[in-house]
């Protein structure tokens, strides 16, 4: 047998090894499932979402106003919700597609869903797939709506609170929101709009298509 193999020409030897490897592949089937990740459970349990990984809506608003965009803002909600309203500069990647997206492992990624639960799930998926810098928006879309689009101030607030609210008001108006004053349960809009009770914000967000902005062209 060995003699017979030794006598073959190089190309025949290569052909036989290719055939053997091909035959083995038949029994291996699928080499790896892209949806199954090996997770070091201990490491993951220790690396819970840190305080500095949770970004306040006001801080995000500040970054957006200053165009301090060294991160990719990812909207994890459904496409329908994304098209209705989203935070400016965000891309839509529904959570089930998060691993097949164009996100790079060296990117800073800021996640938000409707609340903290979705973004925490996505945070776990990305972290266990070796994404380095993953942040989440504290409170998600709910927090963005409450703190940025419709911030409320009680009429009985102290002077200090009122002064702080002035800044919030400006931020809110920048994003087309409607700051409100509350007195005993009835909200009064103090926006610059002519109809004082209109709660609908002017949504200035222009949703960008998922992955459109930073997509890399590859190929031969």
């Amino acid at each position, binding site marked *: 047998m060995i003699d017979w193999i030794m006598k073959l020409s190089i190309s025949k030897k290569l052909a036989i090894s290719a*055939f053997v490897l091909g035959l083995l592949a038949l029994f291996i089937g699928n080499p790896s499932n892209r949806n199954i990740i090996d997770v070091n459970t201990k490491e993951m349990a220790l690396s819970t979402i840190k305080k500095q990984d949770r970004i306040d809506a006001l801080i995000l608003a500040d970054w957006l106003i200053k165009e301090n965009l060294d991160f990719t803002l990812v909207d994890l909600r459904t496409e329908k919700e994304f098209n209705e309203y989203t935070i400016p500069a965000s891309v839509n990647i529904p959570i089930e597609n998060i691993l097949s997206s164009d996100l790079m492992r060296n990117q800073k990624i800021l996640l938000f869903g409707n609340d903290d639960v979705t973004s925490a799930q996505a945070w776990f998926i990305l972290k266990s797939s070796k994404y380095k810098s993953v942040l989440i928006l504290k409170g998600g879309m709910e927090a963005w709506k409450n703190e940025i689009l419709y911030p409320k101030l009680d009429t009985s607030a102290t002077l200090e609170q009122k002064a702080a609210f002035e800044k919030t008001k400006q931020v809110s108006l920048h994003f087309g929101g409607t700051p409100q004053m509350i007195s005993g349960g009835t909200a009064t809009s103090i926006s610059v709009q002519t109809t004082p009770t209109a709660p609908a914000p002017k949504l200035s967000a222009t949703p960008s298509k998922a992955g459109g902005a930073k997509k890399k062209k590859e190929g031969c």
Partner: protein
Amino acid sequence: MMPYFKFDYFGVDFGLVIAFIIGIGFGFALERGGFGNARILAAQFYFYNMRVLKVMFTAIVTAMLGLFYFSWLGWLDLSLVYVGNTYILPQVLGGFILGMGFVIGGYCPGTSVVSASTGRIDGMVYLLGIFFGIFVFGEMFPLLEGFYLSTDMGKVTLPEFFGLSYGMIVFLVVVMALAAFAAAEWGEKVLAKKNGRGIE
């Protein structure tokens, strides 16, 4: 874990250096395979020298087995290897045009660069033709864009398309390649005699 670039082992700059080195190696392999010679390349289409088929199938089988086993050993994340979209009609037409150019000119884009860099004048002329073609295509792109992006099938791979396992596809391609090698060896002898030409 591979691919190294996607896992951020190095940045774009160093990636370009690596691409340059791999490119040199690719050109060297093509030249050593005899692909810098238009006669050998064109002979493929008249079936009296099957070198192109042999080299191409060898490259495909080697790369395929490498990717499959690297991925099986956990060295490579196959899902991060770039797969382009399939636009079936424009790509069939594009392949047809490229094939016509291949038969007429005797080169494909990569081999023409190899040929030009070894000093062959036909290779240099071919290269000029490529740049002219790219220029014309670029200028006409607004007119062609609709067709260019039509019949999009998304990212299709053979295992998904046929609903077979990766291993089955690997096995079938290997068998196909071995059969093609055997047929090519046999065909060369028969056709060389018939055409009265030796195997170059």
